[in-house]
């Protein structure tokens, strides 16, 4: 189960995730990101309430990062230690900006 809330103001977008970002929910986030990104100069993904991520979730993050590299910046906030370890193991800490 994944709950997504988003706010966009002056080219600054925030997407907050709650629950699990897995094979079943990743396509939903992918669609939201695709709708939100055009025109953004900064995107913040708030992971405070995200408990779980699998490779399907990483795939969405990577494609969002690739796109934001062309038009601005992307930052992940409030990443919990278990998810941070997934980023470390996969080398995502080198390509994502984690605040």
């Amino acid at each position, binding site marked *: 189960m994944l709950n997504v809330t988003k706010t966009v103001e002056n080219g600054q977008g925030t997407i907050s995730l709650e629950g699990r970002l897995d*094979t079943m929910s990743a396509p939903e986030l992918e669609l939201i990101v695709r709708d939100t990104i055009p025109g953004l100069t900064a995107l913040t993904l708030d992971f405070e309430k995200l408990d779980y991520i*699998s490779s399907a979730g990483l795939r969405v993050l*990577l494609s969002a*990062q*690739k796109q934001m*590299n062309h038009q601005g910046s992307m930052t992940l906030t409030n990443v919990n230690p278990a998810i941070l370890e997934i980023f470390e*193991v996969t080398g995502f800490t080198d390509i994502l900006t984690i605040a």
Partner: protein
Amino acid sequence: MILPIKGRIDSANAAQVEQALQSQIAGQTDLVLDAQDLEYISSAGLRVILRIRKEHPELRIVNVNSEVYEILDMTGFTEMMTVEKAYRVVSIAGAEEIGHGANGTIYRIDKDNVVKVYNNPEALKDIQHEREVAKLALILGIPTAISYDVVKVGDSYGSVFELLNARSFAKILANEPEKLDWCVAEFAKMLRLIHGTEVPAGKLPDMRERALDWASFMKDYLPEDAAQKLYALVAAVPHDDHMLHGDYHTKNLELQNDEVLLIDMDTLSVGNPIFELGSMYNAFLGFSELDHSIVRKYQGFDRELSATFWQKSLAAYLGTSCPTKIREVEDKARVIGYTRLIRRAIRRDGLQTETGRAEIAHWKGELLELLRSTDTLLFDRNELEIEAVRENLEEVLAFLGERLEAADCTPKARMQLELAVEEIFINIASYAYNPDTGKATVRIEVSGDPLHVTITFIDRGVPYDPLAKADPDLSASAQERTVGGLGIFLTKKLMDDVVYEYRGGRNILTLKKNLE
């Protein structure tokens, strides 16, 4: 009417032979040609047979030697009509007995071959049956030996198997006690393989039907309420399409070179594994409860080892080391076991002898006590068999959650286990049966000292070793990176051990993670 055909039949004498035959068969029925002394038959001879068959469609040829059989086989005659081979005669004088099953005894006739001699002198049908079910089992991925010849042994029939350098588990256990744990592991592994094998409908008898017959039989020998409860317990076991061996003990598992083979396949059936465990309990313990020496006679080792082997195998099969749980399943097995033992003894006039009466009274006492405390014959094997489709991920994760409940594991370890299960299950769902779908079995064992989880995924899809794939390049920039292979890579990193094997037409991937 049986008519001999002799010598050589070719264009030189075919007309003559035909005339001789035709003069004798007019108006006869059930015509059989006995080819015992037939050395050769040419196409002219075959045409004679074709013409006779036109008037006598029931025509059979028996006692055909292998050269003539080959001709009849090549020309399609063996498919068109009944052609029975002559049976080679084999002697078992001085041959070592290597196995003893429900329907026959197995002897080693030379270094490479064994013969199974059937108890029933009218065994040709049984032999045919065993060959068919052994072939079926082999196709379904059970390593077994299939007989290549049918022979005569005295007045009985036998089937011959190639079994090189093979030793039964009974023999290994009796002579090499240090191999106990290895034998237990292989014995349990094979049992899980059998019970994890789904059999197409109608190919094998249904053990549940038989068990209902046993339960009905007991009505005359048990108090009414006990008999009713026994019947209700068996009736409540759902139909199951998975394979049962039916006579699974240490003499029916052979180690041939490095391969473990299952033999004595004539009792194959389908049903819930509790029926198998019932007859296994009997072989290891039930039979010999009053007379402990019986074990040595049947298995070649003493009852103490038999008890140890049974306990350890059951623990390995169930994937638990919890004594209470093992005991619970054993008690359910004993309900089935004693029912079979009592019925068998009574049908063999056990009530007419003192020993028989003592045994029956003992088994009955045990059964009655068990019936008071047994509410179901179903048990849990820590296994989930499920259609490998993405939509079932949630159910697989719920199964994992259930198994982990007792394990007291940290949220982080739990997340990593969930991640590994998701990655592997989704992989199977996406690729194993593409574009069709099929089943996956997920087995989860939590065991102790140090506490660890073992998760096994089994599918029958295309052979695929996920570990063979190269790890992704972690140093690449975001623009260069792709996400392919990340799931497997994560699984390898987050688990302590990942092992892949392809066996019996199955992909078997085992993950291990320490929880301490």
